[in-house]
């Protein structure tokens, strides 16, 4: 059995979960800081800023999804890991990278946009929806990366 192949595939799963998760954690924390600042002055805005805080959390979930799909595809979750060649292992590793890299950076960018949205909510709560939409636009690129990673994972011949 070529253990390098499966090691590379598992590394891919780890990277997807790791970087997307770190990006989300940092971004959700950043928006949380800003949201807490607003709530400390006006507690009635809690529910509005909470939505903004949740937005950059999705990348972490996408990373987790990719990790589970990848581990499932290579049989690790079923208990019978596939005998992958080094090339196949590299392909799985590459398949995870869109989610790992785009997940990290889009979460950070979305966090900054969401903080700006918190600013809108603080000053003009009636325009809270606009702040949410602007921050949600960043999500597009995380979803595109998620799609690419899924397509690759399911189309790599084993």
């Amino acid at each position, binding site marked *: 059995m070529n253990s390098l192949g499966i090691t590379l595939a598992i590394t891919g799963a780890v990277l997807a979960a790791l970087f997307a998760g770190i990006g989300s954690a940092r971004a959700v924390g950043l928006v949380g*800081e*800003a949201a807490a*600042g*607003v709530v400390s*002055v006006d507690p009635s805005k809690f529910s509005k800023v909470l939505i903004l805080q949740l937005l950059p959390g999705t990348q972490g979930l996408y990373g987790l999804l990719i990790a589970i799909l990848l581990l499932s595809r290579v049989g690790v979750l079923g208990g019978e890991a596939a005998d992958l060649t080094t090339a196949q292992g590299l392909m799985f590793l590459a398949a995870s990278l869109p989610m790992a890299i785009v997940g990290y950076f889009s979460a950070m960018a979305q966090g*900054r946009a969401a*903080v700006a949205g*918190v*600013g809108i909510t*603080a000053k003009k709560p009636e325009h809270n929806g606009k702040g949410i939409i602007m921050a949600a636009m960043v999500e597009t690129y995380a979803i595109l990366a998620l799609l690419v990673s899924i397509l690759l994972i399911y189309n790599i011949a084993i």
Partner: protein
Amino acid sequence: MSTTKYANAVAAIKAMENTLLTRNDMEQLIGASGKAETEALLSAKKGASETESAETVWKMIKSYAPESRELEILLYKNDFHNLKAALKSMISGREANRYYVRPTNLDLEHLSGILAEKDYGSLPVHIRETAREAYELLVRTSDGQLSDSFIDAETLRIIQKDSEDFGGEFMQRYAQLTAVCADIKTAYRCSRMKKPRVFLETAVCGSKELDKDALVNAALEGTESLMTLLEGAGYSEAARLLNESAAQFEKWCDDVIMELAQTARMKSFGAEPLAAYYLAVEAEQKNLRIISVCREFGADRETINERMRTLYV
């Protein structure tokens, strides 16, 4: 992550901006028939918080950003004013406390004692050397005006130096504008009063935009030369207003600082929005004082409007 500093503080400040008085509020206050109506209007806008003093706002800002040295530059003017007050009180034997302005970076309770004991090491670094030199100058010459002018020029020099050393772009611009406005005012007054070169050289600080020697020479030649210099340096509006009235020039000085503050309004991170909010509160309080004083002296609505400073919101 340095670019995302103070997210918490800036968001809180943005929520507080809703309680700042707008142009419409000021119009209503100008039109208010008396103290009772003024208080009712303020209470309706600000709720239980009423008008927050600059000191309260400063304490709040520092609680959000306790490690920011950059923000402390905003209080340097007050610090050096308090130094002047403490030195004068030492010489005259009067109680200094009533002349102090707050907020300040200094420990006002012990300031007079520190100066009396010449324990300059207990003062914050930015004021230490100036305190020592000003004290010596005052003792040597017994010229309070010269000592004040020296401290004023040092204030501007240190604001500029510290903003360069640990301030961001916003604070550097603030320092430049503060120095330019103060230098123009000093040079103009000295020129009108025909002060000698030695006094001008002590009183004028100079900045990147207005060279000290050029300013001193122009002031010595006369106000016309000074105006020509200002026009050449891109301060023709300041020169025009200075010719019209000192009050209009003072308003222009406050307005350029507020225009700078407004550039930080849209930012979500960093010390700039915090500094801008503090400047906004100062401007608001100045406007309220203008309304109050103008009313006391029976000024008409048009006069009050002319003197009103640009607002942050």
